[in-house]
């Protein structure tokens, strides 16, 4: 069953990969202004406006002073550019508990994301390797449960995990949240690594065995160096996923350890005081900046990552 689950997921992945490498096939389009082309590009441009608009509005609003925000049109570029909202969002915005800005949430998110990403990739890659090359009785069964388990709504498992973390003495700490991210990253990452490792020729593995290499030696000397691209895909997937998490941050940490998303929501949706829309938009943009930078830098690898992430749902 696990085989079929993995297969069901893989066509989209491999297709996306080939599409990323090959691009559209056939002859280059003829350059002319036919009615069909006007319709085609017209539609695409209108649709693109819908997608670009929020980013544009975010940037423009965050560069205006409050008087200008109140007067003007949210789509218009600022008459007078000011970076004050950014400074305020970063270091002074209030969440109701404290007024030291988003910087606290940013550093919390960094402290959460870095170990979570490293640990989850480490655990899942070794696990995927064991599932491909060192199968044991029951390994496929556990893998199947793992994949189907990723469809269980998190809400069902929240409270048992709270109890578990409390018993371990790490409820409300960064390490508790790191553990939670490792657990819930496991299905998709294991699938990713398992599929990738199974494309590495088995002869290599066998030759290394004959030469006397053991479990860890083969992983470190053969699998790891041969699979760097998939590690990058996993890295992109995890950094964006964990950075964007809200639910786990709210449930498993305490207010002074809240990740950036939670703090952002508390800043913008807090009821007290006059709403400073420019500061809110600067804060929103700041929170979105890390995944956006990763997205624009990684390009096609991101597409590969999310296609693999497809099974996660």
């Amino acid at each position, binding site marked *: 069953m696990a085989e079929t689950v993995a297969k069901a997921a893989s066509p989209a992945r491999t297709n996306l990969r080939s599409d990323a490498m090959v691009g559209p096939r056939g002859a280059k389009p003829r350059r002319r202004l036919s009615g069909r082309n006007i319709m*085609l590009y017209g539609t695409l441009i209108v649709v*693109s406006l819908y997608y670009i608009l*929020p980013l544009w509005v975010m940037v423009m*609003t965050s560069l205006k002073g409050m008087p200008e925000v109140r007067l003007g049109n*949210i789509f218009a570029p600022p008459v007078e550019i000011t970076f004050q909202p950014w400074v305020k969002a970063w270091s002074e915005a209030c969440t109701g508990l404290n007024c030291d800005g988003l910087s606290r949430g940013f550093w919390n998110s960094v402290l959460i994301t870095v170990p979570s990403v490293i640990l989850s990739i480490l655990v899942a890659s070794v696990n995927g390797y064991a599932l491909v090359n060192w199968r044991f009785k029951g390994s496929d069964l556990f893998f199947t449960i*793992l994949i189907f388990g990723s*469809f269980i709504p998190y809400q069902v498992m*929240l409270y048992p995990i709270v109890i578990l973390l409390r018993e371990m003495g790490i409820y409300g700490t960064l390490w508790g949240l790191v553990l939670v991210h490792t657990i819930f990253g496991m299905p998709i990452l294991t699938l990713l690594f398992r599929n990738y490792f199974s494309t590495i020729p088995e002869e290599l593995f066998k030759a290394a065995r004959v030469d006397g290499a053991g479990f860890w030696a083969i992983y470190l000397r053969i699998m790891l160096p041969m699979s760097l691209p998939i590690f990058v895909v996993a890295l992109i997937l995890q950094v964006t996923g964990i950075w964007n998490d809200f639910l786990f941050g709210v449930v498993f940490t305490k207010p002074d350890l809240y990740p950036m998303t939670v703090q952002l929501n508390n800043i913008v949706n807090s009821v007290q005081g006059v709403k400073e829309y420019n500061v809110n938009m600067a804060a929103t943009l700041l929170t979105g900046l890390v*995944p956006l930078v990763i997205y624009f830098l990684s390009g096609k690898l991101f597409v590969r990552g999310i296609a693999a992430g497809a099974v996660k749902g």
Partner: protein
Amino acid sequence: MSGQPKRLLRNLNAKIAALPMILTTLVVFVGGTVWTVVYSFTDSKLLPRLRWVGLDQYERLWSNSRWLISIENLLFYGVMSLVFTIGMGFLLAVLMDQKIRFEDTFRTIMLYPFALSFIVTGLVWQWILNPQFGVQEIVRSWGWESFNFDPLNNPDTVLYGLLIAGLWQGTGFVMCLMLAGLRGIDEDIWKAARVDGIPTWKTYLVVIVPMMRPVFITTLVIVAAGIIRLYDLVVAQTSGGPGGNASQVPAMYVYDYMFQAQNLGQGFAASTMMLVSVLIVLIPWAYLEFGGKRNG
């Protein structure tokens, strides 16, 4: 007697490597789920306790107007979101598949919202849909004084407001899946259709869409599983309002009863219902995917 520990020790390193997976599946996925379902039949309040009350929690759940609204909202949002994400995703993929120029640019533009969190998505659209400064005000300033577009503050339209944001975030991703599906179709099919003189739109409708059935089904399951979890977007964009509960969703109900109202039993019963709804989506899919192989 001596065979038992030996068998356990064989392949020991692999078992150590797989230990996190074994613990996760057994303790968290299976154990946690069973635990929650079992405790949904108790009257746990502040702390979980095993005092059985049968189906009481479920009766209370299904007679709670907030829960009923949540379910109604989720059904409406879910159907609309499924139809539009898959419809729009497919149409965009078809447009992208016309051997266009700047394909990478268009793809980058359509997909970037997917990199952003639902919190960011919700907050941006809350601002754009703000009646005092946003779209409504701009259209009015163009001279159409009576223009009304304030979905987030009207209980009847708030779900459309969420939908605009949700579609913005997710359609690019579905487009990518669909485009991969289109690219996976053999070029010969297209040649055959052209030789037979079938118009392009008809080829898509009659030949390509049925051929892409697996892609559609996978997408459907992914999108549906995401919709059932819908939470962050609502928290950020509307906080469940206006009017307190016009845009409530089940995940919010669960969170509030579990961690705010200290009525654990209700939270467990509600989360069990969420699990049931996932199974309703998942079981037919698993059946089609693994049971119906003979037909496909």
